C-alpha cells in the first residue's frame, strides 16, 4: 500500500493544523509555510498523475479495513487529474492572496489549506458517505473563505451560500441513507456492483436516490435552475477566493461524472445511464442561461460569475454526451476552464483596484493606469474563455463539437455551443470596450496600487501560461483525457481495484 495516495489529504490538513498552532509566528513565515505546502502538493499531484497514467488504480484502505467495510481512497486517472488541476490553481490563487488579501481577516491560510483538504478528499474518496463528509469540510471552509474580509454584500451572499448548501447536505444524507437502505453499502464500487443485481422491486427507490444525488451534485456544480447561489457568491468575495472557487463547481461536475460512470454506469444493469435524460438538456440550458447572464451583467465580476455558470454548462454538455470522445473533451475542457476562470477573477481584481469608486461596473471611467497591459490580458483571457482560437478554449470547444457528431442531439449541441460562444463574445467585447476603450483622459491620475506590477500579475500570467501549455501540449493532455474516459466508461478497473474478490458479497 502506497502512502503517497493519502499524502494530498494529510499535507493540507497538517499544514492547516500547524498554521493554526503557529499563529504567533509573523505573517511572512506563515505565508511561506502555506505556499510551501501547496507547492509540495503540486509536486505530489504530478507524481501521482505520472504513476497512474499507465492505467493502474491505487486503492488505499484507511484503517486497513478492506472495502467495502472500511473507507477507501481511490486514485485513478480522473482523480489524479483533478488533484493536479486543484493544486495548480490553488498555488497561484494563494500566491495572489499573499499580496495582502490574507491580511483582511483571520485564519485565511488555515481555511485555505483545509479547503484543499476538502477538495482533495472529495476527489480521492471511494466512499459515498465520506464524500458527504468532505462536502461538509468544503462547505465550511469555503464559507469561511467567502466571508473573509467581511462586508455587507459578502455576508449576505455567504448566508445564501451556506443555507442553500446546507439544504443540499440534508438531501445528500437522504440520498445516501436511501442507497444504504436499499443496497446495504456505502462504497461506490460496491454500490455499482450491488446495483447490477438489484431486485426489480427495489429499483425505483434506488433510482430515486440516484437522482436525488444528482440534484445535490447539480447544486454544487451550479446547473440550472440551481445556479442562483453562484453569481452573488463569486462576485462578492475576494479575488483569490473567487479564483479558487473556480474549482468548486468542478467538484459537482466531478461527482456527477462519477455517479454517471461508476455507480450508475454501464454496469448498473437496468439502472445504467440513469442521468442520460436529464444531464444533456440541463447542461445545454445552463450554457445558454449562463451566457445570457453574462450579457445581462452590469459589472465585471458578475459577468465572470455567469461565465463560470456557462463553463459548467459546456463541461456537462461534454459529460452528458457520454461517449468516450465527449468525456475526454470534457476532461480537457475542465482544467482549461478552471485556470481561465481563476485567472479572470485575478485580473478583475487588478482592474477593480485601478478604477477607484467605479469598482467593476460597466461604465466609462477615467482611464486606469496600465490600461494597455491589463487590456491585453483582458483580450487574451476573453479569447480563452469564449473559446476562440488559438488557445485552449477553442480546442475544448472543437473537441466537444467533434464528439457531438452522430449523437441524436447533435443539432442542439452545435446550436447551443456555437451560439453560446457568440453570446460570450458579444458580452466580453462590450465589457472590454467599455472598461478599456471608453475611458476619458483622467483629470488627475487614479491611484496605482502599491505593490509592484510584476508581482501583481505573476499569478495571473502563470495561469494564462497554463492555458498556453494546454494548447501546445494538447496531444499528450488529450491522450491522457481519452485514457481517462476509457477507464471511466470501462468501469471495471476501478471496481476490480477496490473489490479484488467481488461477488463474494452477495
Amino acid at each position: 500500500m502506497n502512502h503517497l495516495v493519502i499524502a494530498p489529504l494529510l499535507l493540507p490538513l497538517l499544514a492547516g493544523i500547524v498554521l493554526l498552532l503557529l499563529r504567533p509566528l509573523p505573517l511572512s513565515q506563515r505565508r511561506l509555510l502555506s505556499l510551501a505546502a501547496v507547492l509540495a502538493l503540486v509536486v505530489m499531484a504530478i507524481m501521482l498523475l505520472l504513476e497512474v497514467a499507465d492505467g493502474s488504480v491505487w486503492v488505499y484502505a484507511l484503517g486497513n479495513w478492506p472495502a467495502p467495510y472500511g473507507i477507501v481512497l481511490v486514485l485513478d486517472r480522473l482523480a489524479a487529474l483533478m488533484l493536479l488541476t486543484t493544486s495548480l490553481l490553488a498555488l497561484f490563487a494563494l500566491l495572489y492572496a499573499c499580496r495582502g488579501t490574507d491580511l483582511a481577516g483571520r485564519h485565511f491560510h488555515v481555511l485555505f489549506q483545509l479547503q484543499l483538504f476538502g477538495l482533495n478528499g472529495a476527489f480521492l474518496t471511494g466512499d459515498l458517505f465520506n464524500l458527504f463528509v468532505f462536502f461538509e469540510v468544503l462547505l465550511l471552509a469555503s464559507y469561511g473563505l467567502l466571508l473573509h474580509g467581511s462586508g455587507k454584500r459578502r455576508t449576505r451572499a455567504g448566508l445564501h451560500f451556506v443555507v442553500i448548501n446546507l439544504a443540499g447536505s440534508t438531501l445528500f444524507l437522504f440520498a445516501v441513507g436511501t442507497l444504504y437502505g436499499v443496497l446495504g453499502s456505502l462504497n461506490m464500487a460496491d454500490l455499482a456492483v450491488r446495483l447490477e443485481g438489484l431486485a426489480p422491486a427495489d429499483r425505483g427507490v434506488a433510482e430515486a436516490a440516484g437522482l436525488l444525488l444528482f440534484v445535490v451534485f447539480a447544486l454544487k456544480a451550479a446547473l440550472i435552475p440551481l445556479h442562483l447561489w453562484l453569481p452573488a457568491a463569486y462576485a462578492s468575495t475576494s479575488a483569490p477566493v473567487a479564483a479558487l472557487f473556480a474549482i468548486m463547481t468542478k467538484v459537482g461536475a466531478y461527482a456527477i461524472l462519477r455517479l454517471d460512470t461508476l455507480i450508475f454506469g454501464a454496469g448498473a444493469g437496468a439502472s445504467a445511464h440513469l442521468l442520460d435524460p436529464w444531464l444533456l438538456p440541463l447542461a445545454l440550458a445552463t450554457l445558454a442561461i449562463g451566457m445570457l447572464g453574462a450579457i445581462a451583467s452590469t459589472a465585471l465580476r458578475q459577468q465572470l460569475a455567469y461565465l463560470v455558470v456557462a463553463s459548467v454548462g459546456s463541461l456537462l454538455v461534454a459529460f452528458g454526451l457520454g461517449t468516450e470522445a465527449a468525456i475526454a473533451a470534457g476532461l480537457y475542457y475542465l482544467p482549461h476552464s478552471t485556470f481561465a476562470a481563476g485567472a479572470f477573477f485575478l485580473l478583475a481584481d487588478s482592474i477593480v483596484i485601478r478604477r477607484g469608486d467605479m469598482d467593476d461596473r460597466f461604465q466609462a471611467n477615467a482611464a486606469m493606469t496600465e490600461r494597455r497591459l491589463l487590456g491585453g490580458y483582458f483580450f487574451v483571457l476573453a479569447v480563452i474563455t469564449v473559446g476562440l482560437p488559438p488557445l485552449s478554449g477553442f480546442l475544448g470547444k472543437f473537441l466537444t463539437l467533434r464528439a457531438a457528431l452522430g449523437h441524436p442531439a447533435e443539432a442542439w449541441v452545435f446550436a447551443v455551443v456555437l451560439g453560446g460562444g457568440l453570446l460570450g463574445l458579444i458580452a466580453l467585447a462590450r465589457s472590454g470596450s467599455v472598461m478599456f476603450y471608453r475611458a476619458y483622459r483622467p483629470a488627475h491620475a487614479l491611484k496605482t496600487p502599491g505593490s509592484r506590477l510584476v508581482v501583481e500579475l505573476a499569478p495571473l500570467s502563470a495561469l494564462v501560461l497554463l492555458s498556453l501549455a494546454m494548447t501546445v501540449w494538447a496531444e499528450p493532455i488529450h491522450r491522457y483525457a481519452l485514457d481517462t474516459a476509457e477507464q471511466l466508461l470501462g468501469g471495471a478497473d476501478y471496481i476490480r481495484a477496490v473489490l479484488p474478490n467481488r461477488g463474494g458479497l452477495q
Partner: protein
Amino acid sequence: MNLMSIIITVFAGSLLTAWVSRFGRLQAAWVAGLITLAALAQLLPMVPSVFAGNTHIEHWAWFPSVGLDLSFRLDGLAMLFALLILGIGLLIVLYARYYLSARDCMGRFYSYLLMFMGAMLGIALSENVIQLLIFWELTSLTSFLLISYWQDREEARQGARMALAITGAGGLALLGGLIMLGQIAGSYELSVILNSGDQIRAHPLYVPMLVLVLLGAFTKSAQFPFHFWLPNAMAAPTPVSAYLHSATMVKAGVFLLARLFPALSGTPEWSYLVGGAGLMTLLVGAVFALFKHDLKGLLAYSTISHLGLITLLFAIGTPLAAVAGVFHIINHAIFKASLFMAAGIIDHEAGSRDMRKLNGLWKYMPHTAMLAMVASAAMAGVPLLNGFLSKEMFFAEAASAGSHLKLGWLLPAAVTIAGIFAVAYSVRFIHDVFYNGEPIDLPKTPHEPPRWMKLPVELLVALCLLVGILPQATVQPLLEIASAGVLQTTPPDFDLAIWHGVNIALIMSVVALVGGGLVYAMRLPLFRLHDEHLAPRLQAKAVFDHIMSALFRFASALTRALDTGSLQRMLVLFFAGALVLGVGGFLMGGGPLSGNRAMLPLDPLSLMAALILIFGTLAVVMSHRQRFTALILIGVVGLVVSLIFVKFSGPDLALTQLSVEVVTIVLLLLALYFLPQSHSAESPRWRRARDLVVALLAGTGAALLSWAVLSRPFTSISDYFLANSVPGGGGSNVVNVILVDFRGFDTLGEITVLALAALGIFAMLERIYLPGPDADAQGRPWNWDKHPAVMASFARLLLPLALMVSVFIFLRGHNLPGGGFIAGLVTAVALIMQYLANGEEWTQDRLPANTHPMLAMGLLIATLTGLGSWLFGYPFLTSSFGHFHLPFIGEFELATAMAFDLGVYLVVVGSVLLILIYLGLMHGASHRPASGKEDYR
C-alpha cells in the same frame, strides 16, 4: 525555407514591432516593412516551383489524435493570396507611415497590422481546414483591434464590435461546418477534402455543412444580408480600410469559396445559396454605393458589390467562371487598394471625406487626382484597364449561365443593372471630387501629399494599366496557376484579349458605361428619392442595432426574472428539483413503494412519541414569529428524538443527541439575542401558499422515501462491523468502534468541520459589531440580578461532577456507550452552565482565553494517531489495542483509538468554547463598549 517560418516571421515581427516602438515612432514602421520584406523573401524562392505546377505541403504534428496538425499548403491559389497579402501589405506599411499622425501610436498600429497580416497568410497557406479556421478567427480578432485603433471614437468602438460580432458569428458557424466537413471527408486536410467532392456532395450532412460554411464565408466577405459591418468598419484608419477591402479580410471569404470550390460546388444548393447571396450583394452594393456621400462609404459599398460579383462567379460554377472569379479577385485588390489610399490622401490633405464638400480638387492635387481617376475607371470597367477584362468575363459568364435557366434573361439583366450603377458611382467618385465646382468650406487647403505617400498608389495604378493593356504578358501565367489551384485541375483555355469582337459581353459593357453615365447625370433626383424613401427604411445597421438591443433586453429580463437574489427562490427551486427528480427516478425505476418487511406492532409509547414529534414540529412552524418559543419547541423535538433512540436501543445516539441538543440550544439562545426584535413583513399570501405546497410536497416525499426504505428488508455490510468490532477494533461498543476505527476517517473529517465552523464563527464575529437590545420585546429591562447566587453556587458545585462524568464517559467509550465526542459535549455543557450561572466575566477569568491551541492540538493528536500506524507499515488510522495489567487498577485495555478519541474530545471542547466565548464577548460588547477584546485574539 518553409511556409510556417513565413507566418512565424510575421507574428514574431509583430511582437518585435511593438517592442522597438519604444525606441522611436518610426522604428516600428521600418521594422514592419522589413518584416514584410523578409516574409516575401522567404516566399519568392518557392514561386518558380509553384509555377511549374507543384503543390508544397508541409506537415508538423501537433494534435494528431484528432486530425489537427500544423500543415501548410502552397499551390497556385495560396500563392496568389500570399503575394497579394504581402505585396499590398508592404505598400500599406509604407503608406501608413505617412498617414498616421504624430498622436497615433505607431508601435501598436504596426504590431496589430502584422498580426493581422500573419493571420491572413495563415488562412491562405493552410492545408488543414481547422488550422485555417484558427487563422480565420484570428483575423476577426486582429481586425477588431485594427478597426478600434482610434478607440476614443465611438464609431470606431461600435464598428469594431459590430465587425467582431458578425465575423465572429460567421467564424463559429464555419467551425461547425468544417468539423462536419472533416467528418464527411474523413480528414481535415485539404488534399483529402478536395479529392472527395462526390462523397461530400452525396452525404446527408452536406446541406447543413454547406449552410454553416457559407455563413462563415458570407459574413467575412460582407455578403448580403451581413454586408453592413463593412461600411461601419471604415472607422478604422484608412490604411487599414485599404488593406481590409483589397487583399485581406473580405477576400478571406471569397478565398474560402475558391478553396473549397472543388469539394462543395456543383449542386443546386450551392448555386442557389451562393448565387442568391452574390447577386443580391452585387446589386445592393452597387446601388447603395452611389448614394454614399462619404468617400470611404462609396468605396465600401463598391467593395461589397464587387465581392458579390466574385461570389456570383463562383456560384455559376463553370471552370471558366471560377477563372473569372480569381481574375476579379486580383483586379479588385489592386484597384480598390489604390482607391482607398487615394481617398485617404484626400481625407488627409483636405480634411474631409464628404463628397458634397470636396469639389474641384483637380486644381489642388492633380497628381493624386490622376491616379484616383485611373483606379476609378478600372473599378468601372473601362477598357484598357484591368477591371474591364474581368468584368467582360463576368458578363459573358452571367449571360451564358442565364441561357440555361428558365427566366434566365433576368441574370444578365440584373448584372447589367449592377454594372450601370458601378459605372455611375465610379463617375461620381471622379467627377464629384475632382471637378464639379469649388471645394465647400474644407477645414484646410488641399495639397499634394508627401512623395512617398503617393508611391504605393502609383505602383498599384501602374499595375491596373499594365494588366489592362498587356494581360497576356503580365497576369496570364499567375491567373492560370491560381485557377489551377482553385479547380485542382488544369483550367480551361481562356483568352485575355482586350478585343473579342462584338459579343454579348461587350454589349453589356457598353450598356453599363452609357447607362452609368446617364444615371450619374440623373443623380440629384435619385439622391432625393433615396434620402426620402430608401434611406429611412433600408438601414441594415439599424436592424443589427435593433437585434442587439433586443438581445440585451431579453438577456436582462431573463436574468433578472431568474436571479432575484432571493434565498427563498433558490430553496423553492431546489426542493422542486429534488421532488421532480426523486419522483421521476422512482417512477422510471419502477417497483412498489412499500417493501414486504413484517411490521412491528404499534405500541402506545412510540405512538405518543410520534404524536409529540408531529405536534412539536407543527408548533415550531406556527410559532416562528416568537423565536424563543420556537427554539424551546425545537428543543422538545430534539429531546423526544433522543428518547426514541433510547426506545430503539441506541444509547450512544441518545446520549449524543441529548448533549448536542443542549449545546446547540444554548448557542442559539446566545445568537438569537442579537436578532432585531421587530419582525420584517410577512411574504405575500400567494408566496406563503406556494411555500406551503412545496414544503408539504417535500415533506411527503421525504416521508415516502423513508417509508420505502424502512419497509424493505435490510441487508448490509453492518453485520461485518458487528462481527469484527471486538476482534478487529478491540471494542465492544460497535458505534464507537465505527466512529474511531472502521470509519475513523469520517470522524477526522467531521472534527475538521467542527473546527472550521468554530474558526469561521471566530473570524466572522471578530469583524462585526452587533448592538444587542437593552430590553426584551415588551420593553422591560433585563433583570438586574443576572446571576442569582443560589444558581451560581450549585453550578460551581456541579462542575467537578460533570467533568468526572465526562472523563468516565470518555474512558468507557470503546466498550460501552460513550466516547470522545459525547464526553467533549458533556464537558462543554458543564462549562456552558458555569457561563450561564456565573456570567461571562467570571467564567472567562477561569477559562483558557484562547482555545485555538486546544482545537489545533485536538486535530493534531487525531491526525498523528492516524499517522502512527505508518511506523508499523500499516495504512493511515490503522488501530491497535492491547490488554495491560497494573497493580491496584487491574487489567485494562489500551487502544490507539483512544488517542484518536482524545483528539475528538479536544476539538469538540475547543470548538464549543471558542464559539461560546466569542458570542459571549459580543454580549459583553453590546452592553458595554468592547474592552479587553484584543486579549483574546
